């Protein structure tokens, strides 16, 4: 699970696009960021592992791929053989499907194998579209990424789901890293006896762990400082909506001690809806639109690790 161990080619990066709720625009944003990067000359592979609806191909205007990740799991076909042309130079697509990734059908070892092979793909950028939900498979894939990207809509259900998703991811990350340091069951143990330790939430769990042994505190501080979320706000309709991005950044820091990069937003735009209906890649057909510019802006911010420029603050 350690990113650094397996990954030798440091030139590339894995971006995972998740966020908890379905329908917030993750797939659209993944395909658009990929298209933008490919047209900039980067070598891209998109991996669609949206369990409920692997449909990334539709956003690129290609038909449902016949080869999918189930070939990898069941027949051992290498990932590079499953990568399909997308119609956009430099960019390939590996499609997931419902059967191969349905909740319990892949074993932990299979998952590790998939991650190892993803890390070995000879592409500069691997963009993984995670789909909704906070299932462990989704979260583990999120956690192997070099850049963990959360797409959010400015409405309460999406916000609630994202909190849930991020807290679960963090919980799992801490559990895994403490395990790798030899503290095998400590997180589970504390969480299970939370009444005894007066722990009501993740924040208190972290505090309690830190106070238990000083070196655990150091490990946690290190892990927390590495756990960075890149936040994209989609379907924005007002400047009030944009503030939600800054608010969530603030809450993650002040409540969980997590750093968030609010990289940008995408205003609600009928052209996107039309483009999806027409099954044509948006960045190609509406390349000069305001939305395309917004997509470019946050993609660049993710690339460079910078944030949205606050003009309204």
């Amino acid at each position, binding site marked *: 699970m350690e990113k650094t161990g397996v990954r030798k080619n440091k030139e590339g990066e894995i971006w995972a696009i998740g966020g908890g709720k379905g329908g917030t625009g993750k797939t659209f944003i993944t395909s658009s960021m990929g298209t933008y990067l490919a047209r900039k000359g980067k070598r891209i592979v998109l991996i669609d592992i949206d369990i409920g609806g692997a449909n990334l191909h539709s956003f690129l205007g290609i038909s449902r791929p016949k080869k999918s990740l189930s070939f990898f799991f069941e027949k051992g076909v290498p990932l590079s053989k499953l990568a399909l042309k997308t119609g956009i130079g430099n960019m390939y697509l590996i499609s997931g499907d419902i059967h191969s990734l349905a909740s319990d059908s892949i074993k932990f070892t299979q998952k590790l194998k998939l991650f190892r092979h993803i890390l070995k793909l000879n592409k500069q950028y691997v963009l993984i579209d995670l789909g909704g939900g906070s299932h462990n498979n989704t979260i583990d894939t999120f956690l192997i990424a070099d850049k963990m990207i959360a797409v959010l809509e*400015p*409405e*309460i259900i999406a*916000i*609630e789901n994202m*909190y849930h998703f991020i807290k679960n991811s963090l919980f799992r990350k801490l559990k895994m890293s403490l395990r790798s340091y030899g503290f095998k069951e400590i997180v589970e143990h504390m969480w299970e006896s939370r009444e005894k330790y007066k722990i*009501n*939430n*993740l*924040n208190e769990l972290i505090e309690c762990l830190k106070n238990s042994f000083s070196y655990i505190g150091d490990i946690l501080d290190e892990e927390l400082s590495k756990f960075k979320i890149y936040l994209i706000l989609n379907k924005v309709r007002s400047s009030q909506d944009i*503030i*939600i991005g*800054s*608010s*969530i*950044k*603030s*809450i993650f*820091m*002040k*409540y969980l001690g997590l750093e968030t990069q609010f990289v940008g937003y995408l205003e609600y735009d009928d052209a996107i809806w039309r483009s999806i209906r027409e099954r044509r890649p948006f960045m190609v057909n509406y390349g000069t639109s305001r939305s395309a510019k917004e997509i470019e802006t946050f993609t660049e911010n993710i690339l460079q690790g910078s944030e949205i420029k606050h003009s309204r*603050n």
Partner: protein
Amino acid sequence: MLRKEYKKYFDVLEISPDASLSQIKSAYLRLKRLYSAESVVISPIADEFPYKRRQKILKQIEGAYTALISLSYHGQHKSSYRGESLTSKGGSEDKKEKSTPFSGPVLRQIRKERGIGLYEVALDTKIRVELIENIELERFEVLPQEVYLKGHISVYANYLLLDPKKAADDYIKKYREWKSKIEEE
């Protein structure tokens, strides 16, 4: 350097240490609103992040704002923050100072009180050392044109956490008085 000492306050308000006075204010208001009221971003975690916990954060925000603001006014609103202010000199002078306009010597005095060297200013603001000195010593005859001058003054004032607009306006007023006198002669 001053702004670095106050870094923790800027961190609490989630702004960079080169934030202007108005940015400090709007960040404060935004965060105060965020943590005091229920909203779409607070409600989903309100049970584990209740008002009682948020009050602690509000207190830090309040403290950071007070510290930065008391620093930023040269004698102006300091009666309520006297303990914190670096420029406080006692009650009777407060009223007088309130109307004291900014000038070269006043800027110089504030800079020295805050223990900032000319070179430090130059490094951080990218204004040349000679120019800063000329501004402070009011060597009007060697200063650049008014539009440029105004820009430099507000950058410098902002750096000292002063009101950039007031500083520039006050200074330019004095500059114009000098200029019209010269032209008369």
